[in-house]
């Protein structure tokens, strides 16, 4: 992938993140007299079933989903790093337990948890808080694969001759981590972050499509995508899908480059 491609991808992501700044705030309100309108000068992508401006909803949804996915990916990668490092110190016996534990974690019915979280949280929880909870849950789901690779990398690093030398010279665990493991783990973490972000973005969209995503009153890409599933969907309502494709492809472009680099290092 060329450097130009990567720059273009980064620029696109920036535009997507800043999108809502480009449309006036007054479009946030529902206009009961302009329900399901076709594109006009005032509403370039028409309005939805409740008379809310589609362009505003889609751009706001994009930003919400993108920032949520990034934040969740940071959290997941962080947990993965920590858990992976700790797992690598457990040895064979520990892995005998943690291997199945990670499998269990990955095969639980998380969609049930989405219901349960809504059922457990107080009914007056606002849509913004619910969004945060949803992305936190997605972050909690994403750490397991990162933990696996980090644990494997740490075990490999420990077997390197220089690591044995450092240990023999009396270097403590914390110092070892800071001086030797950390510089090796950072590129790995970056790759994981860049791979997790589109994955979480897609997961949120899938949940939205199944009707389990962020509540409709807090626009997200997932809830915007459901417009496409409604009978009589119009072509301009495919815009959220194009936004999603743009975001995920941009992230993949950058992550590929980063994966190649990390392989070289």
């Amino acid at each position: 992938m060329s450097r130009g491609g990567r720059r273009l991808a980064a620029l696109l992501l920036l535009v997507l993140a800043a999108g809502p700044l480009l449309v006036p705030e007054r479009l946030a309100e529902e206009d009961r007299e302009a329900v399901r309108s076709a594109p006009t000068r005032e509403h370039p992508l028409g309005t939805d079933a409740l008379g809310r401006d589609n362009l505003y909803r889609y751009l706001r949804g994009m930003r919400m989903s993108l920032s949520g996915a990034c934040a969740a990916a940071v959290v997941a990668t962080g947990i993965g790093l920590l858990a992976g490092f700790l797992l690598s110190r457990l040895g064979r016996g520990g892995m005998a337990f943690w291997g199945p534990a990670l499998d269990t974690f990955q095969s639980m019915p998380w969609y049930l948890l989405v219901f349960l979280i809504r059922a457990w949280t107080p009914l007056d929880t606002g849509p913004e808080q619910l969004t945060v909870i949803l992305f936190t849950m997605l972050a909690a789901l994403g750490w397991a694969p990162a933990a696996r690779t980090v644990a494997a990398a740490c075990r490999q690093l420990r077997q390197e001759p220089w690591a044995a030398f450092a240990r023999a010279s009396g270097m403590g665990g914390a110092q070892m981590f800071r001086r030797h493991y950390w510089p090796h783990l950072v590129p790995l973490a970056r790759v994981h972050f860049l791979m997790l972000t589109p994955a979480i973005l897609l997961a949120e969209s899938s949940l939205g499509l199944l009707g389990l995503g962020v509540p409709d009153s807090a626009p997200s890409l997932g809830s915007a995508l459901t417009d496409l599933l409604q009978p009589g969907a119009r072509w301009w309502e495919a815009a959220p899908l194009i936004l999603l494709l743009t975001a995920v492809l941009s992230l993949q472009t950058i992550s590929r480059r980063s994966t190649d680099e990390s392989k070289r290092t």
Partner: protein
Amino acid sequence: MRIFFILLAAGWLGGAGLWASEVRFSLRSDPRTMDPLAVSDQASEAVRYLTTARLVRVHAKTRAVEPELAASWKLSAGNRVLTFRLRPGVKFSDGTPFAGRDVVHTLRALLDAKRNLPAGEELRTLPIVTVESPKADEVVVKFAEALAAPALYFSEIPMVPASGAAAGLGPFRVAQYERGRQIRFEKNPHYWKGAGYPAASAVVVEILPSAEIERGAWTAGRLDFLETVDPAFFDQIAGTGAARDSGPTAEAEVLWFNLNENAPIPAHKKAWFQNREFRRAISRLIRREDLARIVYRGRGTGGSGPFLPGSPWAARRPAAAAAKVEEVVAGLARIGFRRDGGGVMRDGAGNAVEISIATNASNRARMQILSLLQADLGRAGIKVTPAGLDMPSLLERMGGSKSYEAIVLGLTGVSDDPNQQMTVWLSSSANHPWRPGQAKPATAWEAEIDDLLRRQVKTVDVGKRKGLLERFQRIVDEESPLLYLVHPHALSAVSPKLKNAAPGNHRPRVFWNIDQLEGGR
């Protein structure tokens, strides 16, 4: 090679329904039971409708009680004795004859309080003393007191054989059942209406679990009709000649507040909800015509009360219209509510008026209603938080923990018949939304509603009965425990090829005359 292709085409045709008169429709889920007396879900009810028959039935259009297995019936002894005269020569689908003993067997099973069969729920509310069959073609039901129109109560009771065999009296019988896929019904060779009935050679019911999938099957031409369609799809097919709007139904979307004394919600909120002026103020803020216009795309009617405006039982009063915001705010001021400088409505103690309204999230229309309510109530500085839950969680909050503030749900399975409204309005009922299953009525007005509804069952004189129901509706209006938001229209899709279809606005909407329907493939 050509022969192969012809064979392939023949196979395909066979799969798509080679039988010209076959009728195909769909259900959302598998029937939970094939026992006609144990039915409690919509899918099982549809199967029961196809495979069983009743003594009498209510005509889907005229709403008149018509003979079915009973050729005639009469009331005697001052409306205390009901005698059914059975149609001669009727046979079950297995060829065994149908007689009075089968009716007695069915009714006794349903009246048995210990067995508590769902099909007998309404029947058990009647003061029935005995059920007997003095002659093979006669059944006599005796009541402890005079009843207005007791035959109506027998219109949904399927007759089952006393022998316990799995045979029915309906136009069809189950030929093949593939769980999760489809149920195939074949003609009942002994159907009581005789030659020419049922018109269709077979009925195929596909199990299609969502509206999207149903629409896919419809577009692919696999179905002859859709019992219900949402307004968006209705608009989409409006040009094809398949869209049928049978007008408003008695079914309604309703809003209620939590009136349970022991509800785990803040005391000040309980005090608001218990105050009828507060409930009425909320009701007057809701722009019902917008709900009908926007959520139902004009295919709904603003809710006014338990009966539709055209109903013979409806009180003579206009539909509830939204009042001016200033008027409502002034009304709220009289009971101590004030708007602060920022426009936020506060109660006498200074608490901001914030209400969470819950519904089942999977219902898009209800979620849209919540969005509109948010804006409507927001005009008076009242903050609404919409809460979309899954159904079991919602039911748990409604009937178990009572941990909710307000709920929007639909009343289904109710018709214009006042007796069908009793499961909602009687204070002792488990379905009494705002305060279910009361040992004795918590308020004087609930006690009065109980009394009025119980009396109307026994009132033979139509004028007097109307009077009782008029008073009932006035209380409903004054106390506003249940805010009727919108009556959705009965929308269905019927293929122009389906013969004899005449959709109505009671359930079943399209297949009420299933024995006359004929597919045109």
